[in-house]
């Protein structure tokens, strides 16, 4: 079976520093794969290269067998929609509501005036509310993002990724800014969603115990390489 996310030979260097060296990995539908490694090991670069926030020097990225690398920028923009993303710092628009933040996923299809005023069509509002229900935040939907707790903000960010209806979820240190209780809640939620929606989840972490508890597989990175775990399945 084709893996949902397939990365092969991904490499990136900054000046003389090799950040990623020939990284190859697969993530299947419904699977949670953790990437562990000390800071500076290339985890964040891996994340940024797969999402194409940073351009890799070489390598292939496929989602459902379809290559999303080597694309012109207009198609790349659409291709980015194929991957849902959760960031360490949540990256919510502080002065917008939880619901409006979830709506971020649908920006390309909305007219400019709706984007500016934050007035969304009823059908989309229903869908965003549904995504918020999936992360257990329905009551907070009209609350401004900066009034939510860290754990709640990260759950809004997960709902934002769900709203995108992508098959792949990439999470970069999603719990590094959270207290232990909120961290476990967020990771538990990510795993549940992977199972129930068949999401392929690739998640960078720096705590081995969390990786052992919540991930199906763990990859270890050091100096831009995956040093173990790549062949387990």
């Amino acid at each position, binding site marked *: 079976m084709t893996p949902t996310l397939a990365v092969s030979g991904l490499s990136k260097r900054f000046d003389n520093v090799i950040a990623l060296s020939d990284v190859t990995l697969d993530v299947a539908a419904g699977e949670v794969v953790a990437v562990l490694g000390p800071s500076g090991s290339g985890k964040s670069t891996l994340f940024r290269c797969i999402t194409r926030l940073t351009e890799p020097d070489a390598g292939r990225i496929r989602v459902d067998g379809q290559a999303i690398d080597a694309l012109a920028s207009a198609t790349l923009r659409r291709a980015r929609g194929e991957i849902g993303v959760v960031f360490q710092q949540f990256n919510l628009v502080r002065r917008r509501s939880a619901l409006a933040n979830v709506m971020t996923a649908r920006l*390309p299809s909305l007219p400019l005036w709706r984007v500016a005023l934050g007035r969304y069509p009823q059908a989309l509002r229903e869908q965003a509310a549904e995504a918020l229900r999936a992360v257990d935040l329905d009551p907070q939907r009209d609350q401004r993002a900066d009034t939510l707790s860290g754990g709640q903000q990260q759950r809004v960010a997960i709902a934002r990724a769900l709203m995108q209806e992508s098959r792949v979820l990439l999470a970069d240190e999603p719990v590094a800014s959270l207290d232990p209780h909120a961290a476990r809640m967020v990771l538990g939620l990510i795993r549940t969603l992977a199972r129930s929606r068949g999401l392929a989840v690739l998640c960078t972490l720096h705590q081995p115990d969390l990786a052992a508890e919540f991930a199906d597989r763990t990859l270890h990175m050091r100096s831009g390489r995956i040093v173990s775990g790549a062949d387990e399945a």
Partner: protein
Amino acid sequence: MDIVKDADGPARPPSAQADLVPTAASRTAFVPLLGLGVAFYALCLHVAEVDVLRLFEGLPRLAGWIARSWPPDLSEIDVLARRGLETVAMATVGVSFGAIIAAPLCLLAARNIGVTPLLALPARWLLNALRGIDSFVFALIFVAAVGLGPFAGVLGVALHTAGSIAKLWAETIETTEPGPVEAARMSGAGRLRVFLHAQLPDALPQLSSILLYMWEFNVRASTVLGVVGAGGIGQELKNSVDLLQFDRVLTILLLILAMVTAIDQLSAWLRRRLS
């Protein structure tokens, strides 16, 4: 600082001697530089025809005018109030037009939006040019082009203010957080949608505050536009000074003070509420 360095000079290791070389050099340069500065200032005093004697000779005349200005002439207060309103209207409409011109300019100029990176530099040149030419100068030209009256003032204020607003707005937008922008870009949305969704809400209080400040500033600045014939209370002021009607001048000055103070207070109050 130099003196301290000299004082503990002998106690320093030899390698620190290198530090003293540029210091010594800058001290030897200081005396000629100071002399040059003094000479330049003296030249300016001469060119500006500063003459304390003439000031003393003029003082009795000034005192006479001040004496004659009391009591203020309130006979035409309705005309003057209308002219004051004209000044406020000129500034208000001018700033609103300026904001309309500034909006696309700041979107082009802000480095973290980059709607069309190719146009960023020309946009910066344009806004710097607009900002560099005072509304007074623009008004002078527009009086010649569209005739006497407040409309020339409106156009003058609009062009100069467009440059100032665009620059301040672009700088504000550049301080917004990059994180939410990255998240919004991941949706595949274009830069304008990303700006409207992720950057505008966070920048909006500051953008509004800048607009209010520019309004307040232009009400003050527009009082002089009448001097070049661009309407408003400045025109009455010039006429009254020319005709040596100092009781009328006093009325106008009091009116300007009241008007500017009221607008300043209102604007400051609104801006406090925004932050």
